[in-house]
């Protein structure tokens, strides 16, 4: 199933939760192949990226260059381990490729490279760049009179970057309601809590002051994610949208949750097995 087909809401949410559980398992599996990965931030963004890719975005399975597709920029490029499996699952390349993660000449490393990964719309990794690129992409959609949207997923610590605050007013100034930015608000950056390191709250008020429409939601509640994505304005709207997705760093693996030491880590076999068990146990209850 893909997107808004005939299934009931409960079936849809179960389907998306299944995808999120699968993605979390992939993150653990790939981190073993890769010898380490950004586990905390990968697990925190899993529900968001699943909702965006499997529900909101207008895509063609297996066709990464379809001109009218919605675009996605992983501005928090270190989340590649939670992004590349989704692109494979969209049929943009063989999932077998993922087994090369981090190896010499692999298309996949810590940060995604659009020249090597089919379906990746922009290379990222240096924080703060994604929203500016989204503004440029959204302008091209306007110039070409196209209705596709640009989704951009940022980390919460990332919005410390000054460039974000150059792009935020540009998006509203140029009336780019075809931009949907999402902040993975897991409250922890590498050195600890964002509010202790460099406070970013109140996020919603700050972005509203820059001319954005803001939804502030639980980023692990698939129902809330779907409802919010349903409320997106038509892409012709003049106001860009920000979704503040309140998440938990390391979500789904209880010993990693809210612990910044799992920002980046490798797992031995025993820890991997333990993590996978946790993911099964932590999965939201089925509705159907």
């Amino acid at each position, binding site marked *: 199933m893909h997107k808004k087909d005939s299934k009931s809401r409960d079936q849809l949410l179960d389907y998306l939760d299944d995808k999120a559980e699968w993605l979390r398992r992939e993150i653990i599996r790939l981190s073993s192949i890769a010898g380490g990965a950004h586990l905390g931030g990968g697990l925190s963004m899993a529900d968001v990226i699943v909702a965006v890719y499997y529900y909101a975005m207008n895509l063609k399975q297996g066709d990464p260059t379809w001109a009218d597709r919605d675009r996605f920029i992983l501005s928090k490029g270190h989340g590649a381990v939670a992004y590349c499996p989704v692109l494979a699952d969209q049929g943009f390349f063989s999932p077998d490729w993922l087994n090369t993660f981090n190896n010499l000449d692999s298309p996949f490393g810590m940060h995604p490279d659009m020249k090597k990964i089919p379906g990746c719309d922009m290379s990222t990794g*240096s924080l703060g760049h994604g929203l500016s690129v989204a*503004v440029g*992409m959204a*302008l091209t959609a306007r110039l070409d009179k196209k209705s596709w949207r640009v989704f951009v997923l940022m980390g919460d610590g990332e919005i410390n970057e000054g*460039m974000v605050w*150059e792009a935020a007013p*540009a998006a509203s100034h140029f009336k780019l309601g075809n931009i949907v930015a999402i902040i993975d608000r897991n409250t922890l950056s590498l050195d600890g809590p964002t509010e202790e390191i460099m406070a970013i709250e109140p996020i919603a008020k700050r972005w509203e002051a820059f001319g954005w429409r803001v939804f502030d939601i639980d980023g692990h509640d698939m129902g809330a994610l779907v409802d919010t994505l349903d409320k997106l304005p038509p892409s012709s709207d003049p106001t860009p949208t920000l979704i503040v997705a309140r998440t938990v760093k390391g979500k789904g693996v209880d010993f990693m949750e809210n612990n910044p030491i799992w920002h980046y880590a490798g797992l031995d076999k025993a820890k991997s097995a333990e993590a996978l068990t946790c993911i099964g146990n932590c999965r939201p209850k089925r509705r159907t």
Partner: protein
Amino acid sequence: MAEQVGGLTYTILDADKMTAAEIYGDVLTQIGGQRPEIVALSADLAKSTKIGKFGEKYPDRFFNVGIAEQNMFGVAAGLALAGFVPFVSTFAVFVSMRAGEQVRTDICYQKLNCKIIATHSGISFGQAGTTHHCTEDLAIIRSFANMTVIAPADGFETAKAVQASVDWKGPVYIRIGRGFEPRVYTDDKFDFTIGKAREMRPGTDVTVIACGTPLVGAVDAADFLKKNDGLSVRVINMHTIKPIDREAIEKAVMDTRRIITFEDHNVIGGLGSAVAEVIADLGKGCAFKRVGIPDEFSPVGYPDDLYHHYKLDSEGIIDTVREVMGKEFEEDEDWQDEF
């Protein structure tokens, strides 16, 4: 009869009255009429960089992002990703340093078709002082893989560089001055090929290699030295810093065995360094001197005074050539046999 520049409809008379920046603004506007994929971006310097001319003619394809250079290059990347050809203009100091990482990571890494017009480079913005001088950009920008780097000598050459860049695959950095520099060329009847240096004066005693503003002084100096000192000074216009014309440099080594470079840039990392790299690779002995800003922050002053101060005008170039020619340089009969 109005002469055309690069097939475009502004005249020699205009070129006399217009700055290099104004000419490029006009050229870009005219090319924009033929090429709907061209878009232009400015960071609140549309007037200073003259890219605003394009904006007046094509307001739908012109984006002023305000005083926010990092965002500007990110936005340009987004536009280029969908097949547009962004021309982005701001002062060289802000391209290469304020937004250097965005240029590298968002544009060069992806080899995007983005053309950068970096104005007010070197010490051309004299009275604005060190914050607005830019004597580092060639060193920084030429180290970005995929980037092509051009330093045209005057308005005519800028017009040709802008035209050539449109169909050149990948990012191009075109470095110009403030635009009030004197003309080197008297008309547009010359070939301009990216990566191919131009011999402005033939010569056999010594080769002067220059780019950008100092080229006019180099040409004048060669003419003066021929007449007064009987010296045969070859003058090479190395308008493309990357990819550099290795052949022209190697030929100069073999033919004249004396090379002097002149650039409006720190002597570290710019034209002189790029030429030195080729000479070193060649492995042939050659008297060599780099003239530019000697690894210091340039002071405030009117541009002409600064060019004089740093020996980048004809007088300074004459002095330097005489100095190099006056030095003992050991001739070696077997030189051609060395590896």
